[in-house]
């Protein structure tokens, strides 16, 4: 599922010529994973400072 998602998302970025979204997406996915994993507010200020 993840593989086909990555292929499709890459195809989408190419079609829309929005490659600049990729690093932002990766950052967001990482932050998002952090939020999902921690499920709490303790990391929020940390993320906020970085963002």
């Amino acid at each position, binding site marked *: *599922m993840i593989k086909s*998602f990555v292929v499709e998302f890459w195809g989408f970025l190419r079609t*829309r010529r929005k490659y600049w979204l990729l690093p*932002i997406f990766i950052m967001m*996915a990482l*932050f998002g994973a952090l939020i999902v994993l921690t499920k709490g507010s303790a990391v929020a200020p940390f993320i906020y400072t970085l*963002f």
Partner: protein
Amino acid sequence: MRVLGISAFYHDSAAALVDDGEIVAAAQEERFTRKKYDARYPRNAIAYCLEQAGIGLDKVDRVAFYDKPFLKFERLLETYVSFAPRGFASFRMALPLWLREKLFQKPLLVGELKREEPGFDWENRLLFSEHHLSHAASAFYPSPFARAAVLTLDGVGEWATTAVAIGDGRQLAIHKEIHFPHSLGLLYSAFTYHTGFRVNSGEYKLMGLAPYGTPRFVQVIRDHLIDLKPDGSFRLNLDYFDYCTGLTMTNARFDALFGGKPRQPHELLEQRHMDMAASVQAVLEEAVLRLTADVARETECRNLCLAGGVALNCVANGKVLREGRFDNIWIQPAAGDAGGALGAALAAFHLQGGGERTVQGPLDAMKGGYLGPSFDQDEIERRLTAAGARFTSLDQEAMLETVAGALADGQAVGWFQGRMEFGPRALGNRSILADPRNPATQKTLNLKVKYRESFRPFAPSVLREHAPRWFDLAVDSPYMLLVTTVAEQHRKTMTTEEQALFGIDKLNVVRSTVPAITHVDYSARVQTVHRETNPLYHALVSRFHALTGCPILVNTSFNIRSEPVVCTPEDAFRCFMGCEIDMLVVGNAVLRKQDQDPALRVDYRDSFEQD
């Protein structure tokens, strides 16, 4: 070629089945799950569509989803980036949801479809249509026009909030768009939020509230909130809105501009809220009129099709009609996102599949909007008996006579017949009916039957052939999507004292010979009843006319506040036992309240969620 259309995952999910361009079935998921505006994958609605066609998923050639999740995600991402670091709270709430499910809508859809048909070939059979193309297709393809301009207006789809398209034969192409965050739908929703109603569903309450107010904030809105150009294009001033970055629609600046904080749902409505409703309604109408004038000028079309949530604003639609820029206007009855399922299926058939389109004379292709489930008399009786109902089955003539007599005696009747309607309006198959001549009807229905706010007006169903004598209406309005005024000869002149009344106090003034359906400004949201599309309902209104001389019935959807419209005979019986309806008619089975077992009564009064 068979196409199944699906809309889901935001609000009001639905499914629709199209067979060689003919609309076979369409229904909203909420009707089956009994959860209002249910946004989950429409498993039940899909099962119903397939059952109605007598096929399995393996006989469906294409499945079309009504919008493009990646494009929506792109909008979300770009919005956060452009406002960062503001918007972190919203970002934090939204991102896990996207990462968990919304980004993976395609795998989710494939998984669900494979449960139905394990060998489902998604690579060749699953299609995604753009949100506003789905709306435009739902408005144009079923319309009775060979060529038409199409205007779609809503909160937001992927990027577009407003789109102009031209439909010609089987072709349909979007010509221009206005993009998020500039949106008439979101402007209206901001006022819906501030006046204490629920965004995405309370907009029609705001519209109903508007006639009680004075539009004293129009200039404030024009000066501060929206820059409205002569061609109808517009830009919102985002300094006053919170929806790009926050968790609410409006912010403190908006509150300061209108002199107060947002109303909480339990707080009383004040004159200020009514004035805000009147003002935003006036601004919306001005924007829509400018847009339609520009569309008429640019496209040189004499036919206009409308869809998108804003097209449910029947007051604005009525003004577009009276403005006279178009000879004919057709509005998709499921103009909101549920209709996107139908539009996606039709777009897949005509645009992607190259299917031809035939226009069927003066009638549209919606079959009166009666596209949902139906139950034959045997099944009705079996289901009612199992539910513990006590009923008498009559032949159709006797049933019509009984119901017309009960209505003329002032009773409220639950009327359940034939196929359920698709879209938010009950059009005479899942309706509560009453006598419009009775001055107490509006208050009684609101407080004892629907358990809802007493300011809300009811809509009339009028025999098409009598409509021009009772309303200022020269065209058909089969889907209750045009507001017009009660004809002069049926109005009652208000005394000076009555005219001086303000706000809700105006409600109790008898303003016409049909007060239950006459709003405080003499307006009415008319449904014209046609023998061709609903002969049984036409026959009932005709009987009532023969008894009373009045060819009109009050028609409100068969549900109580915060519940979806009833779908099955059991739903109808439960609703009947939970409110003060005097009589229920399901097919030819007649139920009287006094005959029912009191132990089966349901008390709904404390179970309301905000709707």
